[in-house]
């Protein structure tokens, strides 16, 4: 799979400003912009980093340049939601997708462990998609709990939070320049753990119709708080109530976004 991807990247590089992927060197592996002539034997597929955020930064810095990205299913989903919110430009992106293994999917409780390239202007996928993995069993356990038990569960979990902001920083869908989690109106400053439950619930609410279940937030959390239990339920509700699955369809308008155009507010029709 890696060889196939490297070959494809090598073929595409002459027409791109560069390809965002992981580079492995003697000191470790991290995101890198491969350009023509770079040593592609250093291109690797593990571990997981939020490459969509790197693409967004590069496209913003170079508003004319076309880039490529080596993307997993969740990266592609993240890029879809970013495109809808003007964080990336799909017209200037070549998506080199690849499928995850069944083991990886199980580890991520991932329902869609391969990029869906439908609707992408320029994309292709390497590998044979495996079936989606079963959901996180903790979600079902949580749903068995009474309201009081749920409250106690989150109180105990959120009390571990060291307020590193890692969950927000790593999340490809957290890109606001002014973040409510840094606004004393919402989150009292200087408190550890952050006062229950605002910090975590504000973030959970802001992930509605945005969270693409990449699980990066949970992986980065030093306190091992099962954050995606909240976000998975949010995804389920957005699906059931508004018929929207974040990351699934690049052509579908996000139901909670309103746009102003031609002096009209657009998007309300989907809310009603």
């Amino acid at each position, binding site marked *: 799979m890696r060889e196939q991807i490297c070959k494809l990247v090598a073929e595409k590089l002459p027409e791109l*400003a*560069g390809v965002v992927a992981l580079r492995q060197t003697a000191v*470790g592996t991290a995101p890198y912009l491969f350009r023509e002539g770079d040593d592609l034997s250093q291109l690797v597929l593990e571990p997981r980093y939020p490459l969509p955020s790197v693409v967004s930064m590069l496209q913003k810095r170079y508003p004319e340049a076309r880039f490529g990205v080596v993307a997993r299913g969740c990266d592609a989903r993240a890029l879809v939601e970013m495109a809808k919110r003007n964080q990336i430009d799909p017209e200037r992106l070549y998506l080199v997708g690849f499928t995850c293994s069944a083991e990886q999917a199980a580890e991520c409780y991932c329902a869609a462990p391969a990029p869906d390239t439908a609707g992408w202007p320029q994309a292709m996928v390497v590998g044979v998609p495996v079936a989606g993995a079963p959901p996180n069993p903790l979600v079902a356990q949580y749903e068995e709990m009474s309201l009081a038990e749920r409250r106690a569960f989150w109180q105990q979990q959120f009390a571990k939070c060291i307020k*590193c902001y890692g969950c927000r920083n790593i999340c490809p869908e957290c890109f606001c320049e002014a973040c409510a989690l840094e606004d004393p109106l919402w989150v009292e400053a200087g408190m550890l753990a952050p006062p229950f439950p605002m910090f975590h619930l504000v973030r959970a609410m802001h992930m509605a119709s945005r969270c693409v279940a990449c699980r990066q937030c949970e992986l980065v959390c030093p306190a091992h708080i099962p954050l995606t239990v909240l976000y998975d339920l949010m995804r389920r509700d957005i699906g059931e109530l508004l018929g929207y699955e974040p990351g699934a369809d690049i052509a579908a308008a996000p139901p909670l976004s309103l746009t102003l155009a031609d002096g009209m507010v657009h998007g309300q029709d989907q809310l009603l």
Partner: protein
Amino acid sequence: MQYENVRTTCIYCGCGCAINLQVLDGEIVGVFPDPQHPISRGSLCIKGWNVASFVRHPDRLATPLVRQGEGFREASWDEALQLVAERMGAIYAASGPQSIGFLASAKCTNEENYLLQKLARTIVRTNNIDHCARL
């Protein structure tokens, strides 16, 4: 156009978390933790996440300062180190090893702090070594 991550170690405490400094065209633009690092295992604290913000901060001292009257004046490293060596030598000659103490720093690596205590114990021959956290 160049984007890469430069691997280094967080300087804020002695834990030794790995950080990747995201560098775009020679400018530090962000930090990534490293999921494969045996110590930090993909996590950082709030200080590590923001470790890059002081690198070009306008308040950061960019040269040594030498006290002059009520204030300070800028000096070269050579001059500053020369001055420290002379003054320490004079104090040592007048009052002996017990008159000198060393303060190690959390912002240095363990190895650098090891070297500092070596300097203190074997060259100045004092055990007066403490840590900046108790300053």
